[in-house]
């Protein structure tokens, strides 16, 4: 039911869409003809077991990997994403699981990494960078000792807040979060989840990968389930149960894959 709404033009046009995405690493088919839609201003949870292809999908969107086949559309227009800066241009920003920050540099430098404000071609405008970084963190109410502190001196939660700040600074409409809370404690996880909800409240579309179904049912609008590189289910939060999602993840019930993928059943 949910599926038919997504597949047909009944709903609004997806803001971000992937069609027929496949990606193989050697003999491993990480993604097999996957369709994926994100609507404007929604908080989408991407779930699945280890090796289901979640991170691969996110990395294709963020320009780290290139898909073997398939197309990406933003507002219905096809976009080429071949490197991270293509993704930035398409309005896609990513918060990585493994905290891709530079420990020996300050908070502002990390937030503006790759997008530093300059004077002319070669001079760094550090004053503007510090001011902008404070403004970016301020929009989310993130409070750090100072934007001039090295990231090495921050806690795990603070670091993830910096990573989210970096995604925001990119002006991304779409913010992808690859297990943003995997390395955090309980309280800090709670705070990152609050930040995630705030991002949606500010009009961003957020895709987040997680293994924690409690979080999914706390904050997500829709849930996409991947299994063995295929999309086996798309559910609105209100129309499913935790049990159904677990069954889809583990393959205990047959997913929707036979309707979407050449009629093949999931093994």
């Amino acid at each position: 039911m949910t599926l038919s709404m997504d597949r047909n033009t009944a709903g609004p046009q997806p803001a971000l869409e992937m069609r027929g995405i496949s990606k193989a690493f050697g003999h491993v088919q990480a993604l097999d003809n996957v369709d994926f839609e994100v609507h404007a201003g929604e908080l989408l949870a991407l779930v699945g077991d280890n090796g289901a292809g979640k991170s691969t999908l996110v990395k294709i969107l963020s320009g780290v990997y290139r898909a073997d086949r398939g197309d990406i559309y933003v507002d219905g227009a096809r976009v080429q994403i071949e490197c991270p800066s293509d993704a930035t241009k398409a309005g896609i920003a990513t918060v990585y699981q493994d905290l891709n920050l530079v420990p020996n540099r300050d908070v502002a430098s990390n937030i503006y990494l790759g997008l530093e404000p300059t004077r002319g071609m070669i001079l760094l405008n550090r004053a503007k960078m510090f001011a902008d970084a404070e403004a970016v963190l301020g929009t989310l109410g993130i409070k750090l000792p100072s934007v001039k502190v090295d990231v090495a001196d921050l806690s795990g939660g603070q670091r993830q807040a910096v990573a989210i700040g970096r995604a925001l600074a990119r002006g991304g409409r779409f913010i992808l979060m690859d297990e943003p809370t995997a390395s955090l404690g309980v309280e800090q996880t709670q705070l990152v989840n609050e930040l995630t909800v705030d991002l949606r409240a500010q009009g961003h579309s957020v895709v987040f990968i997680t293994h924690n179904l409690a979080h999914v049912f706390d904050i997500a609008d829709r849930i996409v389930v991947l299994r063995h590189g295929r999309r086996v289910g798309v559910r609105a939060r209100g129309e499913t149960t935790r049990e159904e999602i677990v069954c889809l993840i583990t393959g205990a019930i047959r997913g929707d894959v036979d309707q979407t993928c050449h009629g093949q059943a999931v093994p």
Partner: protein
Amino acid sequence: MSLVPSGVHERSPFGSADRRGSLRQRLRFVDWMMLGLVVTLVGLSAYFASASPYFLRVENLLNIGAHGAIRGIVAIGLTIVMVAGGLDLTITAVMCAVGMVTAELIITGTPEWLAAVIGLATGGAMGAANGLLVTKGRIQPVVATLSTMSIMRGVAFIIERDRARGVSLQLDQFSFLARDRFAGSMPTPLIWWLLACGIGFFILRYTVLGQYVYAIGGNSDACRVSGVRVDLWRFLTYVLSGLASGFAGLMLLSLTNTAYSQAAMGAELDIMAAVILGGVGLGGGRGGVVGTMLGTLILGVLNNGMTLTSTPLYWQYIARGAILVVSVGLDTLRKGGGYR
């Protein structure tokens, strides 16, 4: 210490502003490494001043500066490469090859300034070759520059051919770079060194290149996924190092009036020692021009003072090694094994 006043938006673990950490935070602003270097430099100088009546003479101090200058300039280029996580072993081979090329050009009738420009460009090109091997060729910096170092020495041999004592210039040729004195008494090499330090400091502190040099040295993967063109910036650091070494090669030629294929051989390790002493780690991401300058000065003072006090050469080697290992060891201890 927090910048945002506490209010509705306060989120406790983010917002507690690390009360416990604030003392540590404040102590970080005291740069222990730099303080240690200055203390070492002052201590050494005080010792040699008491041991030799000649040490504190202006003429001797200028001498230390002039002798440190060539190594100091090379060290600035090496600092930039190493902060970005690279390594350049070709520094002295570039000096030598640039000297050979320039001397050959001068004795075959090229105007001195033109020969110098071509020599400098040769240094830049050699740095570019290193940069290409490391970035496009994906060869480890140690391996890449070890190979090119050998090739450059070989080329210098070819230019030298069968001239037993290298390529010698006339006494009055090419003296403006290092032999003439500025304003009557200031040795020109010292001026060049200060200028090179100024340029290096400016690059690392105020330019986009400097920003990326530290970021790439800190975490090159993070830079890559953030859209930083890591290869381009790395390549540029090697070009800069080639230019710095090339300029030092011109100075050496001007100072000695001779270019020969063994020039400055082995000095690359001394220069690297000065850079590491100054706080640049092999892993990259830390250190800077001021530290490198202090490191070069400490080794220079040590050399000069031990010569003035007629300390045997083997003690000079041992003292240099001891200072290096103690300073790096203390720095590692203080950090508790580093933060990564």
